[in-house]
């Protein structure tokens, strides 16, 4: 099909078929105001603010009007402007849109439209009815008095994130946004992914921390990648005076397309663990502060004197930190006794070589093998829900409860896992999402399945560490260096440290691991570090430092480099 010729505001423009008038106008830099429309969502033409006047004299919403051959529209004709003012006045009259009361004043799209069309008073008297508020949710404020019923949150919750929690109840002027058909948000099936907050054009849905910490225009925005699981979701972090205010999903990220989970969007805002703020040495049972220079000298000396120095690193460390860590042990210390704080079966890694997260969305059948992604890899759970809504079959192999059981076509006990092979037989595209800690008997079953495999590695850079050969266990040593990032060490690790003569820990936070250490070196968190990490698909992405580390606190890479220098 060839190009279409249409006229917008008297300008002849040529566009590809399949666009709406709004999209066509945008390509030519013509700004049509919108409220219920959002670039990431399917248009529904609810608010009518984007009306344009056709040559025939009808008013049509530009967001849903297809651009057709010969169409002529005016986007700011007197009639259009009058209509938009009327619509804005109706919106302002319906609930309480008095900006003085509102936390998002300055960031509000309704307010901006009021300014744009010179609404200097309310034509109809507002504040007739009081609407409820729902502030019980852990992170999200739902303020019905600010709602304009645009349904952006409803569409984002269902179409983008796959959760189908938000919906509308009642009709006409009584229409209300409602989680799970009139449940309070707190008691609903909301998984706290927060996408509703990100798309809300007014102050109806906002987050408890970000809402009170200023206007977006006053904040610094940094694009980065979330390091709270191995998915590698693109994020946009908002900071002010070196404080993290809020985290949004990056719409442009090819990994998560703007969707996040609780771990990615909210958990970092509520970080309460105590930071290691200064290097500490333990001598004769007493802990003392020492300078950074001295702690590096002492650590280098201890590692040099060691008969069998050992090193363990967190799979949250950047590729660059892993590289210098390898260099420290192989070149400076001539030791092969290095390991990773997680270990994976090599066969699992081989299985997953061609898996990609996007495969979940296009799969005909999905298997969750001994894994429940909802809590650990929330966006994977989103993708699974979306796929099931698009008619994919879901099979779950588990002996425990699984939060996605509701979506499953069939649930198998692990002892019945063999049945998978027959069940999956007819499906062309199968994606198996598995726990990477599966045992060899599981692998025997899985190898018989023709599928794309996606092991949900635990940490942000598990794959990067594995690729750099850091997947072996950590042997016995007399002096050990642990680069812990934010990990506090599991009970197995802590037990294995009993025999170690001297323990050096590089850590973000005070933890059982630092309690056991003889030397503690503070390190920057992932929010304060720049570098690259490799996600579970094997895609290497750049993480940018979002806030500055406290004074005197360096990144893992810088600390290890200083150790290498000190070792000479």
């Amino acid at each position, binding site marked *: 099909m060839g190009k279409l010729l249409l006229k917008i505001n008297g300008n002849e423009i040529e566009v590809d078929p399949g666009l709406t008038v709004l999209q066509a106008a945008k390509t030519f830099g013509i700004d049509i105001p919108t409220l219920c429309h959002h670039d990431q969502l399917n248009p529904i033409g609810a608010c009518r603010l984007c009306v344009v006047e056709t040559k025939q004299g009808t008013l049509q919403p530009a967001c849903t009007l297809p651009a057709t051959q010969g169409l002529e529209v005016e986007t700011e004709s007197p009639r259009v402007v009058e209509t938009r003012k009327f619509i804005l006045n109706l919106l302002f009259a319906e609930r309480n849109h*008095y*900006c*003085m009361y*509102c936390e998002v*004043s300055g960031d509000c799209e309704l*307010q901006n439209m*009021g*300014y744009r069309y*010179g609404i*200097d*008073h*309310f034509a109809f*008297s*507002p*504040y007739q009815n*009081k609407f409820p508020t729902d502030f019980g949710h852990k992170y999200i404020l739902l303020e019905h008095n600010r709602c304009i019923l645009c349904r952006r949150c409803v569409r984002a919750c269902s179409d983008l994130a796959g959760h189908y929690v938000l919906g509308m109840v009642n009709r006409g002027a009584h229409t209300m946004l409602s989680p799970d058909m009139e449940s309070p948000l707190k008691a609903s099936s909301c998984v706290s992914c927060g996408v509703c907050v990100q798309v809300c054009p007014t102050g109806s849905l906002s987050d408890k921390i970000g809402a009170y910490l200023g206007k977006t225009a006053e904040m610094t925005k940094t694009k980065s990648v979330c390091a709270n699981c191995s998915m590698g979701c693109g994020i946009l972090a908002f900071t002010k005076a070196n404080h993290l205010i809020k985290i949004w999903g990056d719409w442009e990220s090819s990994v998560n397309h703007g969707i996040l989970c609780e771990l990615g969007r909210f958990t970092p805002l509520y970080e309460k663990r105590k930071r290691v703020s200064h290097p500490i040495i333990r001598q004769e049972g007493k802990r003392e502060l020492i300078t950074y220079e001295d702690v590096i000298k002492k650590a280098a000396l201890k590692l040099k004197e060691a008969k069998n120095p050992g090193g363990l690193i967190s799979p949250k460390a950047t590729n660059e930190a892993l590289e210098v860590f390898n260099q420290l042990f192989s070149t400076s210390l001539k030791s092969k006794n290095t390991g990773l704080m997680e270990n994976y079966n090599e066969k699992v890694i081989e299985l997953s070589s061609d898996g990609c997260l996007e495969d979940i969305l296009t799969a005909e059948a999905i298997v969750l093998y001994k894994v429940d992604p909802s809590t650990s890899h929330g966006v994977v759970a989103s993708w699974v829900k979306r796929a099931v809504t698009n008619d994919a079959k879901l099979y779950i192999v588990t002996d425990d409860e699984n939060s996605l059981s509701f979506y499953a076509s069939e649930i198998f006990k692990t002892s019945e896992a063999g049945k998978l092979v027959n069940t999956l037989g007819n499906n062309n595209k199968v994606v198996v999402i598995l726990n990477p800690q599966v045992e060899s008997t599981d692998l025997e079953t899985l190898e018989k399945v023709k599928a794309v495999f996606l092991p949900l590695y635990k940490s942000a850079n598990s794959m990067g560490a594995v690729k750099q050969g850091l997947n072996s266990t950590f042997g016995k040593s007399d002096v050990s260096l642990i680069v812990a990032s934010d990990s506090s060490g599991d009970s197995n690790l802590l037990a294995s440290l009993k025999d170690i003569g001297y323990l050096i820990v590089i850590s973000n936070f005070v933890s059982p691991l630092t309690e056991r250490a003889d030397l503690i070196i503070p390190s920057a968190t992932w929010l304060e570090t720049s570098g690259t990490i490799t996600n579970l698909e094997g895609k290497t992405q750049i993480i940018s430092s979002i806030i500055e580390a406290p004074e005197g606190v360096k990144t893992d890479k810088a600390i290890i480099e200083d150790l290498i220098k000190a070792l000479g």
Partner: protein
Amino acid sequence: MAKVKLASTWLEACAGCHMSILDMDERIVELIQAGVEFTSTPVTDLKHPPEEGVDIGIIEGAIGTDLHEEEARHLRKKCKILIAIGDCAVFGGIATMRNYFSKEELLTRGYIDTESTKNGKIPTSDELGKLLPKVKAVKDIVKVDFFIPGCPPPADSIYTALKELLEGRVPVLKGDLLKYD
């Protein structure tokens, strides 16, 4: 140049809008030199607009009592152009918070139930205005010719509006001059 007479008053408000009028600073002198005469205003402390009336009337504050209603009607009668300044006069403002409670609830909470009050009682003097059932914007009582929203409205907006009116144009507030908060 003929004098342009101006009168202003505050109703249910905090006086912040009149602070914004004063915040025009030396431009007040400029307006006076251009022919503006400030007659009755809270600033000049003259209580009643002149008998013969004024050209421009300015109201700050919402309509909360029968006295406010009376005063708004009076100024409307006495002026040619009526300007509502500030969120309370324009939208109803902060005072509309009480619209969601009954008069009785409100007065009991305010004069009797407050944590710091002992043996409180609701004032009943005839000199006090009687609360209307709901707080209203000025335009709900009398015709308003021009609106300057903002809490407080920027001094620049008030200055621009007066200047435009003096020069015989209808003011249009845009950009930083139009603010809701």
